[in-house]
């Protein structure tokens, strides 16, 4: 009898933990996380120091769209960390489905590119699921209000993945410049072509 009860409970847990269709929308309160960084230390929003927010980017090693943006993500961090908005990069991919996105491979890539920001591993994919990340790269700009974080921008980094020299609008920079100027973010949601998140089967 006990077993009969356990099965639906497991099924329910499975459904509840599967990628959410909804996720966060602009204006929602963002959830904190506590995930292992490539240096072995745990990283959380609460653990960030002297910050006004964070640029949370779901990204990974293998996706060419993510790779195309690596240098621009480094530049974002270098420009905005000092102004209170550091980049926190999160790899949500299942290493069984995408071996190039294993924790070990993350360490290698972070060292090769000398990432100046944390590159953390969403090992059970819960953070990507709760945030509603669906592709890589997928950006969530968070602004801090005391100890809470508001989702202020969701979307792409800019409007040209493969040709940085032909970018017309830098969405994330535009949003951050407006936030830093105390203005309302005019474009707070954009879409881009990207790789699917490789969910565990």
């Amino acid at each position, binding site marked *: 009898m006990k077993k009969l009860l356990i099965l639906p409970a497991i099924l329910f847990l499975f459904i509840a933990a599967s990628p959410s269709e909804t996720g966060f929308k602009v204006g929602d309160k963002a959830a904190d996380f506590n995930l292992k960084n490539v240096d072995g230390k745990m990283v959380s929003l609460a653990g960030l120091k002297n910050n006004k927010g964070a640029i949370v980017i779901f990204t990974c090693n293998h*996706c*060419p769209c993510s790779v195309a943006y690596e240098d621009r993500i480094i530049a974002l961090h270098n420009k905005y960390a000092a102004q209170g908005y550091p980049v926190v990069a999160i790899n949500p991919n299942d290493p069984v489905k*995408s071996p190039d996105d294993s924790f070990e491979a993350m360490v290698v890539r972070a060292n090769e590119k000398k990432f100046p920001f944390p590159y953390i591993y969403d090992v059970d994919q819960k953070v990507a699921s709760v945030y509603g990340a*669906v*592709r890589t790269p997928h950006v969530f700009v968070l602004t801090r209000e005391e100890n809470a974080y508001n989702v202020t921008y969701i*979307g*792409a980094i800019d*409007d*040209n*993945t*493969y*040709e940085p020299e*032909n970018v*017309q609008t830098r*969405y994330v920079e535009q949003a951050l410049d407006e936030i830093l100027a105390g203005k309302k973010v005019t474009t707070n949601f*954009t*879409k*881009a*072509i*990207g*790789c*699917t*998140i490789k969910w565990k089967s």
Partner: protein
Amino acid sequence: MKIKITLLFLFFLFCINLRGNAQSVEIVKWDYIENLMNQKSDTLYVINFWATWCAPCVKELPYFDRLAAENKSAKLKVILISLDFKKQLESRIIPFVKEKNIQSKVVVLDEPNYNSWIDKVNPEWSGAIPATLIVGGTTTTPLFFEKEFIFTELNEIVKPLIK
């Protein structure tokens, strides 16, 4: 001398082989998709968004070719819209199409400002690929799928939509 002749012969065979299989891959702009979406013929268009770098896309590509092959005499057209970087047309996309022996029509969409057109394909689309749009045939409104298909599922969806 013999070797030279053999090499020449092999090269000749290679050229014939290329001519036999190769399909031309065009670079298109947004209006190409817009025209497909607005077409008023009886033909059912199965439009798949993919890229050579997208593993789940590459996995499902043969199913689209099989769908077309099994419905050769029906009013069905499969169009594979590559979202690869257009500069890789000669170095990557055309060799890929040849190597995989893709029979369906392949075009490369050159519209780097993704945010300007993703919603026009379907507002529900997040931008992740593979994604498939089905228009025409017996459909009343376009059908959109942001997912990876297996053949049976694709076939079950498409079959009743053919006029």
